[in-house]
């Protein structure tokens, strides 16, 4: 019975812990990031923005700095990763495990990627392979080779694990978007976000502005959808678990029925029997919930959320290559006690009541 409850509760607690951990880390990332992200409107969606727009943006009152970024997804040795191109001086804040800041033609990669692809300093990797033309059955290929100058610490967050960073000029060369940035990250003085937004909109009416608040909303929405999907799946699992619990808790089991018959035959009242069953269920719930909590804690912290984490963090495999963020809060713990109680009650109270309300001779037969 306890094992059955743990099997139901453990994924629930683990998933909620990971979801809360990822959410928390996302919030921190957004909080530490830029105040406004500027792109160009391209038929109602985000389009690239000319890098020359950085200068007028910098001059807006309240702006601390404006950082052009080139961001895109690329494959490196078959592994999907994120390429981030930013000005060289912005890379100085990255904490390196090995190597140094990259120069032109060099890149730095996250530890997760280095471990996964067995890469080291001075290794070369090919990025942005493209067939330009096929003439007389001969493909003309563009290949760009980059030397790994440094490996940075991916402990800092789940987003950094599979990240490749290089200068924005090199990134633009890979994406073939010379002179443009994917967006411009604008950092402003406290209290200036609204006035800077207005000024930016005045500079160019085709600017699309995403404020920190908006980015947070997108994050929350994304996690809520994931959380909702999980809740729906869990409800289904929960519903399927009830018959399993019914069987394991003694629905129709002659042994349990016989025990209740013995108790009734020796003078127990029906309410005495039900009180005992209730107490047993509470004990089961009080054992199962903390046990599930401990197993979840060990699973997520020691085994790094093996298998479970992939459902909540996009683009990772069953064995995550970075420490999976997690946050064990009291609410899931209390909920797991509640779920245990509900499951055991549904599974046993009715069958116990039925056994206790027939004549003992019938229950013992």
């Amino acid at each position, binding site marked *: 019975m306890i094992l059955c409850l743990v099997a139901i509760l453990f994924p629930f607690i683990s998933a909620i812990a990971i979801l809360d951990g990822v959410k928390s880390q996302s919030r921190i990332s957004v909080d530490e990031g830029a105040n406004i992200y500027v792109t160009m409107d391209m038929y109602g969606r985000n389009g690239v923005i000319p890098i020359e727009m950085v200068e007028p943006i910098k001059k807006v009152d309240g702006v601390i700095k404006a950082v052009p970024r080139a961001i895109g997804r690329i494959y490196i040795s078959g592994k999907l990763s994120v390429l981030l191109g930013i000005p060289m001086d912005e890379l100085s804040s990255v904490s390196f495990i090995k190597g140094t800041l990259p120069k032109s033609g060099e890149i730095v990669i996250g530890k997760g990627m280095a471990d996964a692809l067995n890469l080291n300093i001075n290794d070369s990797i090919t990025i942005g392979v493209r067939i330009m033309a096929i003439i007389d059955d001969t493909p003309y290929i563009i290949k760009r080779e980059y030397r790994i100058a440094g490996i940075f610490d991916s402990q800092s967050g789940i987003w950094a694990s599979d990240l490749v960073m290089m200068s924005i000029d090199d990134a633009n060369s890979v994406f073939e978007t010379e002179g443009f940035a994917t967006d411009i990250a604008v950092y402003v003085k406290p209290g200036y976000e609204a006035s800077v937004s207005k000024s930016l909109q005045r500079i160019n009416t085709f600017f699309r502005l995403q404020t920190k608040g908006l980015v947070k909303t997108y994050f929350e929405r994304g996690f809520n959808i994931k959380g909702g999907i999980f809740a729906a799946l869990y409800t289904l699992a929960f519903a399927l678990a009830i018959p399993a619990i019914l069987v394991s808790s003694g629905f129709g089991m002659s042994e349990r029925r*016989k*025990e209740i*018959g*013995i*108790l*009734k*035959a*020796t*003078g*127990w*009242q*029906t309410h*005495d029997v039900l009180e005992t069953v209730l107490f047993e269920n509470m004990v089961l719930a009080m054992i199962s919930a903390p046990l599930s909590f401990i197993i979840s804690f060990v699973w997520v912290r020691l085994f790094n959320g093996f298998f479970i984490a992939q459902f909540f963090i996009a683009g990772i495999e069953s064995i995550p290559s970075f420490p999976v963020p997690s946050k064990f809060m009291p609410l899931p713990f209390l909920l797991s006690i509640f779920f245990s109680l509900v499951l055991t009650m549904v599974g046993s109270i009715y069958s116990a009541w039925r056994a206790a*309300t027939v*004549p*003992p*001779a*019938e229950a*013992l037969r």
Partner: protein
Amino acid sequence: MSFIRCECVWKIYNEAKPYEVRALEDVSLNIEKDSFVIFTGPSGSGKTTLISIIGCIDRQTRGRVYIDGKDLTDLSDIALSSLRQKRTGFVFQNFNLIQGLPAWENVSMPLIPMGIKENNRKHTAIHLLKRVGLSERHEHSPEEMSGGEQQRVAIARALVNNPDIIILDEPTSNIDVDAVGLLIDILSDLKREGKTILMASHDENMLKNADIIHELKRGRLVK
């Protein structure tokens, strides 16, 4: 007025169905207080059914049963449980002990709903186990005991609430000869204490000790 009285008692299983079974048919009898009564008869004659109804663990289909003038027929589940708790002690043919629990806990089980503290329950249970010759085995669970020992634990449990009616169902069917002798001694003591003993049995050794023998055949009282 008789201490226990049965008036035209019928017990029918699956009544009005093609596979209806008449376990008891029109049984009427009177049992006096402090008597040792044995119901005998072949297997399936209705002995167990009759003592189960008198012992308040089953209900008759028709007829009336009185204990000390109280009609059991229309008693609620609560009232019947209360009667079982205060007045009857039942020793089942297969003992019906709870596996995995030590002997003393099995014996003291009826005392739990009375709110008696564990220490007192244990003390009472060990005292009764001593009386049936099992004081050394109070921590042993039923699965570690012989049939005769389990039966003595069941007897101690039947006595724990100090009932005035002790009911035993085929008590010699699962025990050896030595245990039968010990059982007769225990029952003699109980009779001396003024307990009314009802038993379903066809064991000659038991029949010799009975005050009254009722014979049942195919659910009818024939003697």
